């Protein structure tokens, strides 16, 4: 049973994944054909060589880091809809925590997939409505000097503070090591992208578990 369901999810996921790739690539093609404007290869290459060095390498780390945590359906959905670290991952984690189910079980799989799917639709709707209806007003809400600006500027500490508090209360022994390592890394490399930093802190946290387990402190 277990094998069956996960196998099915992977099959659907791969099909949607290929569909998404085709759709994505068709966008620049359509733009180039419709406007009859193809980019100059050398200009495009000079841009891409920079971007790919940065993002294709990060992508490998991201895939290895997120895949075990998002579940199968959640992974295929998250990587198509994006905004993983700041949205899909915390939403999936919070849902599994609330429903008291474990990652890498069928229960965890369905709950995180539903949460991530709902979150994707909500984001898509908010962006679409925002663009179509509120585009003229929105700059005032998030503009310099608006009373609401600080709320959105600090949305990430608020999100991870809320998420962190419930986890930390339960697993306080595991907390100090990854935070300290993360801070040390940032002291030397202050602008490191959060995707890469996360890889370091996860390795630190997991290594910490290994040590605590050996010492029988868990």
């Amino acid at each position, binding site marked *: 049973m277990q094998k069956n369901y996960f196998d099915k999810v992977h099959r659907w996921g791969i099909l949607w994944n290929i569909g998404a790739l085709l759709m994505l690539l068709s966008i620049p093609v359509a733009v180039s054909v419709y406007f009859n404007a193809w980019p100059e290869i050398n200009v495009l290459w000079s*841009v891409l060589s920079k971007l790919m060095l940065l993002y294709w390498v990060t*992508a490998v780390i991201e895939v290895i880091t997120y*895949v075990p945590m998002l579940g199968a359906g959640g992974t295929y959905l998250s990587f198509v809809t994006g905004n993983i670290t700041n949205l899909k991952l915390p939403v999936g984690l*919070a849902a599994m925590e609330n429903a008291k189910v474990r990652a890498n079980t069928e229960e965890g799989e369905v709950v995180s997939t539903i949460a991530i799917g709902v979150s994707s639709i909500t984001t898509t709707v908010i962006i679409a409505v925002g663009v179509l209806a509120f585009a003229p007003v929105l700059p005032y809400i998030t503009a310099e000097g608006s009373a609401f600006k600080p709320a959105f500027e600090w949305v990430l500490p608020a999100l991870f503070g809320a998420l962190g508090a419930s986890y930390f209360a339960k697993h306080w022994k595991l907390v100090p090591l990854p935070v300290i390592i993360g801070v040390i890394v940032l002291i030397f490399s202050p602008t490191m992208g959060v995707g890469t930093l996360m890889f370091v802190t996860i390795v630190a946290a997991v290594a910490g578990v290994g040590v605590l387990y050996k010492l029988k402190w868990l």
Partner: protein
Amino acid sequence: MDFKESTFMYVIALGVVAFVTLQSVFFIVKSWKHAKELGIEKETLKNTVVSSILFTVAPAISILATVIVLANALGIVLPWIRLTVIGNLAYETTAAQTAVEAMGGTLTSSISDVKQFSTVTWAMTIGSIAPLLMLPFVCKKLQKKIGNAVNKSESAAKLGDAISAAAFIGIIAAFIARAIAGTTSDGVGNAGFMSIAVLIVAMVAMVILETICKKFNLEKLRPFTMPIAMFIGMGSAMLFEAVLPENIVNFVWR
């Protein structure tokens, strides 16, 4: 009419929105059905839906804000498309900036050359598709390995639980470390008074809300404690900005 906001571009955007929505609905329906087979209560699933929506609203609005920022140079439709598929805040801004600057422009002025616009479209797309090229080959293998390792025995399952808890904590730790010591390339959101204050307020709010739930047995409120604590954290940022002296609010050490 500006080519960046022509009907053609809107048609592409709506197509993308339709694709993403369909995929999400597909997976939700399949998961929902299987959840029933597994005997998960409807109440639990409903709570998952509602709390996920609540949790999503604020971050989605900040994503929308990025769309608006990029709209300066790229028109509103392309950033909308890019942030609906794969897009994420940091990536799209950097990609657009790199592309525009390579052609001698800046993100603050509008692109008027169709060729430049199509170059940016190509660069943003190809730069971001790497994960989709990898997933069909690695996703299943990675998850099978982990599943097998965890389900081998009772003690392996226990260690597996501890490791996945550790991995979650690693993720959160990265963001906390950033609030303590991080900077960003554009200097917005550097570690300082505000990042720490908001982090602490959100944490304390969460602890208080959970305690209230436990004490008064408010099981119904439990799924909403996280989004509510997040909103309290965001509200505190507005409050600090409004009442505290500027030199405290703007105090950063990175």
